[in-house]
C-alpha cells in the first residue's frame, strides 16, 4: 500500500512539475501576477509529493519489503538498519529518486527563501527548475521505476555490495547530489536572466548563496568519496582519476570558476556573459556525470548496471537542457551589455586568469575522461587514460593557478600595481624559500618535485595569512582593536581566507602523499614484527570474528615506535555470505601528520597472511584542507549581504537602459 502511494505521489509530482514549468513562464511573459503566483505553491507541492515517494521507498527498505524488485535486488533482511536505509541510494533507481528529491528540495528552498526576488525572476527560475524536474521524473517513471513489484516476492533479498556498507559512503552520495543538483539553481538563474535579457549586480548577489551552498556540498562530497576510497579499498590511494571521480571533479572546477566570476559581476558588473556560460556549463557537467555513470559508455568501478534505453534517455535530457541552454545563450547573450572596464593587472584581471586556468583544467579533465570514448567511436580503438596523462597536463595548469591565487586578493579592483602587491608578499617569499630549502635539506635532492609542491603550499598559505593580517592590521595596534576588526571583517573575507588556506593544506597533503609514501607487502605470521618508516608493527594474533552480517579474519597488531607501544591496530578481511563478497577493513593510525595504514589479505597457505603496510605522510591534510575549504564556503554563506534584503535592484534602471542602448 505504502509503495503504491509512493508511486502515485511520483506521478502527481510529475503533473505538478509540468504545470510549474509552463504557467509561471507564461505569467512572467504577460506580466500576469496570478499565473506567476503558481510557481511557489507548485514548487512546495512538488517537493511534498517527491518527499512522499522518497520516504515510501525508504520505508520499503526499512521493513525489507522484498515484493519490490528494487529492494529485493539491493537489500537483505540481515543488514544493519543504517545500511538498509542508505541502501535506498546505493542503486540506480533509488539514487535517481534521491536526485529528484534533492532537486525538489532546492526548488522548495528557492520558493521559501526568495522574498526579495522580483516576482518575474522568481517565476522564471522556478519554471526552469520544474522543467528539469519533469525530465527526470519522466526518466524515473518510464525507465527506472523503483516501485515495480516482484511476483512472487522472494523470501530474502540479494544484499548490498559489501564495500558499499560503510558509514562514510552512506552519506557520500547525498552530499555529492546536493552539490550536483544545487548547481541547477545557478543554471535556472542563468536561464531566467537570459530570458529576461538582464544580468546585474543584484542578480549576481541572489545567485551567489545557491552557488556557494552547492559548492560546499560538492567539496564535502568529493572529499568524502576520496576518503572512502582511501580507507576501504585498501590500496593506500585516495584519487584514481576514475571517470566517475572526474565527473564530480569537473563541475567542482567550473563551479569554483563560477563562484569567482560571479563576484566580478556583483562588484563591477563585468564578465556577465562569461558568468552565465559558466553557470550553464557547471550544471551541464553535473548532468554529464549522471550520463557517464548511468549509461555504461565508460568503464568505471562506479558504473551502475547499464541499460541502453536509459543511456539514450539521459542523453536526450542532456541535449534538451544543455543544448537548449546553449542555443538560448547564443541567441540572447550578445545582447547583454558589457560592464565596467578594468586593466589587466587588477582584481578583475586576476579573477579572469583564475577562470581561464580553472576552465582549462576542467577541459583537460574532460578530454582525459572522454578521449577513450571518442577514440572508440571514431577509430574503434580501446585506450585508457591514466594518472600519467593528468600529471602531465592537469598539474602544470594548477601551478600558475596557485601562484596567482596568492597575488590576486592583494590587487585592488579596476587597476592594480603588481610590484607593490609583490612587495607586500615579502613574508610569503621567505616562507616559500624556507619550505623548499628545508624539504631539500631534510630529504635530499631526490625530492625536487616535493620541494616545489611544499614551496607552493607555503607560498599560498603565507600570502593568505599576510592578506588577513593586513586586513586586521594585526601588527599595528592594540589587540582589542584587532579583535574588533576581526569581528567586523565581512564573513565573505573569512570564507576566502579559510578556502584559500585549506587549498594550501590540500596541496601540502597531496605533495607529501605523492612523494613519500612507503609501501611494504609481506607475508606475516603471528609473532612476527615488521619495520616501516621508523615504526614497528607487531602481528600478535589473527582470529575469526563475527560481525552483524559478515565473518572476518581479524588481526591484532601493535604499533610501536622506539620500542614503545603507540596504538593497537585491527585490520580485518571480511566475508559477507549473503552477497558472497569480501571487503577490506583497513586499520589506520593517524597523528594528523601522517598515517600508518595496515591491510590484512588472504592466508598464504603456510599459516601466514599477506599483509600490506603503508606509511602515508601528510595524507590527513588532504581531508583537513578540504574540510577547511568547505567551512570557508559555509562561513561565506552566512555573510550579511545574503541575509539582509538585497539592494532591491537599484542598479536595475540603469542596467536596463544600457541593454536598450546596446540593442
Amino acid at each position, binding site marked *: 500500500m505504502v509503495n503504491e502511494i509512493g508511486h502515485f505521489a511520483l506521478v502527481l509530482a510529475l503533473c505538478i512539475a509540468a504545470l510549474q514549468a509552463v504557467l509561471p513562464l507564461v505569467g512572467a511573459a504577460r506580466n500576469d501576477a496570478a499565473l506567476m503566483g503558481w510557481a511557489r505553491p507548485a514548487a512546495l507541492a512538488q517537493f511534498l509529493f517527491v518527499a512522499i515517494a522518497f520516504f515510501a521507498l525508504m520505508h520499503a527498505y526499512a521493513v525489507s519489503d522484498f515484493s519490490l524488485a528494487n529492494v529485493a535486488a539491493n537489500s537483505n533482511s540481515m543488514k544493519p538498519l543504517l545500511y538498509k536505509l542508505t541502501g535506498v541510494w546505493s542503486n540506480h533507481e533509488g539514487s535517481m529518486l534521491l536526485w529528484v528529491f534533492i532537486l525538489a528540495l532546492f526548488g522548495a528552498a528557492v520558493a521559501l527563501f526568495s522574498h526579495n526576488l522580483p516576482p518575474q525572476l522568481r517565476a522564471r527560475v522556478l519554471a526552469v527548475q520544474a522543467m528539469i524536474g519533469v525530465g527526470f521524473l519522466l526518466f524515473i517513471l518510464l525507465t527506472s521505476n523503483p516501485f515495480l513489484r516482484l511476483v512472487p516476492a522472494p523470501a530474502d533479498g540479494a544484499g548490498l555490495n559489501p564495500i558499499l556498507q560503510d558509514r562514510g559512503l552512506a552519506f557520500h552520495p547525498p552530499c555529492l547530489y546536493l552539490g550536483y543538483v544545487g548547481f541547477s539553481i545557478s543554471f535556472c538563474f542563468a536561464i531566467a536572466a537570459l530570458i529576461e535579457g538582464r544580468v546585474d549586480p543584484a542578480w549576481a548577489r541572489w545567485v551567489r548563496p545557491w552557488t556557494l551552498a552547492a559548492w560546499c556540498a560538492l567539496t564535502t562530497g568529493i572529499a568524502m568519496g576520496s576518503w572512502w576510497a582511501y580507507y576501504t579499498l585498501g590500496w593506500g590511494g585516495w584519487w584514481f582519476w576514475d571517470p566517475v571521480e572526474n565527473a564530480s571533479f569537473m563541475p567542482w572546477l567550473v563551479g569554483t570558476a563560477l563562484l569567482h566570476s560571479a563576484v566580478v559581476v556583483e562588484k563591477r558588473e563585468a564578465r556577465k556573459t562569461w558568468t552565465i556560460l559558466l553557470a550553464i556549463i557547471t550544471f551541464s557537467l553535473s548532468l554529464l556525470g549522471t550520463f557517464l555513470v548511468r549509461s555504461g559508455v565508460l568503464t568505471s568501478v562506479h558504473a551502475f548496471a547499464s541499460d541502453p534505453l536509459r543511456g539514450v534517455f539521459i542523453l536526450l535530457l542532456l*541535449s534538451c537542457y544543455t543544448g537548449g541552454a546553449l*542555443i538560448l545563450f547564443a541567441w540572447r547573450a550578445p545582447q547583454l551589455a558589457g560592464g565596467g572596464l578594468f586593466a589587466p593587472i587588477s582584481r578583475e584581471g586576476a579573477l579572469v586568469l583564475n577562470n581561464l586556468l580553472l576552465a582549462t583544467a576542467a577541459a583537460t579533465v574532460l578530454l582525459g575522461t*572522454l578521449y*577513450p*570514448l571518442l577514440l*572508440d*567511436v571514431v577509430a574503434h580503438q580501446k585506450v585508457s587514460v591514466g594518472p600519467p596523462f593528468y600529471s602531465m597536463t592537469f598539474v602544470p595548469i594548477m601551478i600558475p593557478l596557485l601562484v596567482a591565487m596568492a597575488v590576486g586578493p592583494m590587487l585592488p579592483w579596476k587597476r592594480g600595481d603588481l610590484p607593490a602587491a609583490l612587495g607586500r608578499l615579502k613574508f610569503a617569499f621567505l616562507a616559500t624559500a624556507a619550505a623548499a630549502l628545508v624539504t631539500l635539506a631534510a630529504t635530499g635532492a631526490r625530492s625536487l618535485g616535493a620541494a616545489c609542491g611544499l614551496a607552493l603550499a607555503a607560498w599560498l598559505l603565507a600570502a593568505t595569512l599576510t592578506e588577513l593580517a593586513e586586513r586586521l592590521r594585526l601588527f599595528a595596534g592594540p589587540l582589542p582593536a584587532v579583535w574588533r576588526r576581526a569581528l567586523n571583517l565581512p564573513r565573505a573575507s573569512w570564507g576566502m581566507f579559510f578556502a584559500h588556506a585549506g587549498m594550501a593544506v590540500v596541496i601540502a597533503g597531496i605533495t607529501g602523499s605523492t612523494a613519500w609514501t612507503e609501501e611494504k607487502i609481506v607475508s606475516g605470521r603471528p609473532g612476527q614484527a615488521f619495520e616501516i618508516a621508523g615504526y614497528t608493527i607487531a602481528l600478535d594474533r589473527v582470529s575469526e570474528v563475527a560481525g552483524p552480517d559478515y565473518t572476518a579474519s581479524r588481526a591484532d597488531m601493535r604499533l610501536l615506535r622506539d620500542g614503545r607501544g603507540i596504538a593497537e591496530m585491527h585490520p580485518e578481511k571480511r566475508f559477507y555470505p549473503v552477497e558472497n563478497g569480501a571487503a577490506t577493513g583497513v586499520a589506520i593510525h593517524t597523528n594528523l601528520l601522517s598515517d600508518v595504514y595496515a591491510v590484512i589479505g588472504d592466508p598464504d597457505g603456510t599459516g601466514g597472511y599477506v599483509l600490506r603496510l603503508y606509511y602515508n605522510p601528510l595524507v590527513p591534510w588532504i581531508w583537513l584542507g578540504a574540510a577547511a575549504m568547505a567551512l570557508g564556503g559555509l562561513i561565506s554563506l552566512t555573510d550579511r549581504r545574503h541575509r539582509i534584503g538585497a539592494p532591491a535592484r537599484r542598479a536595475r534602471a540603469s542596467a536596463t537602459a544600457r541593454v536598450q542602448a546596446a540593442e
Partner: protein
Amino acid sequence: MNKRGWIFLIPAAVFALLAVGFYAGLGIDPNVLPSPLIDQPAPRFALPPLQGDAQGFSSADLTGHVSLVNTFASWCAPCRAEHPVLNALAQTKRVPIYGIDYKDKEDLALAWIAELGNPYTRIGADDGRVGIDWGVYGVPETFIVDRDGRIRYKHVGPLTQADIERTILPLVARLER
C-alpha cells in the same frame, strides 16, 4: 546580434559535436576487449571426444564453412544460462556449433549435456591447453570462424538471444557471402 555574435555559437556547436559522439558511444560496450587473435588463423589443435562420441574436435573441422566455437564447462553457471540460447540456435541449423569442454570432469560434462540437451556438432574435451591457444580467460566465450579457418569475432560471457540476432547471425550471413 552584433558582428561577434558567432562567438556565442561556439559552446552550442561544441556541445552538438559531443552529443553526436555520445550517441555513437552508446552502442559500444566498453567492457568488450579486443582479442589479438581476431583475423588470425584459428590455432591448430586436436581434442579427444567426450565418452560415447565417435569423434573429437580438431582444427580440420573448421575449414570450408563458417562455424561457431563455444567454450563451456559444467561448473560454469553463466554457461547454464547460455545453454537454451545455443539449443535454439542449433535447431535453426543456421550455423554449426562446436564445443570446447574447458577444464571439466568428463562424467559431469556428460550429465550436463544429458540434462540440458546437446546443441554441438562436435565436442572436444580440453584440459586447458587448447584454451590457452584460443586466448580463453573465462567461460563461456564464443568465437566465429570463417570459411578459411580464421577467427573473425570473439564474444566474452554468455550469449543472449539479442546477441544472436543482432551480432552473431548478421556476421555469419556476411561471412557466408
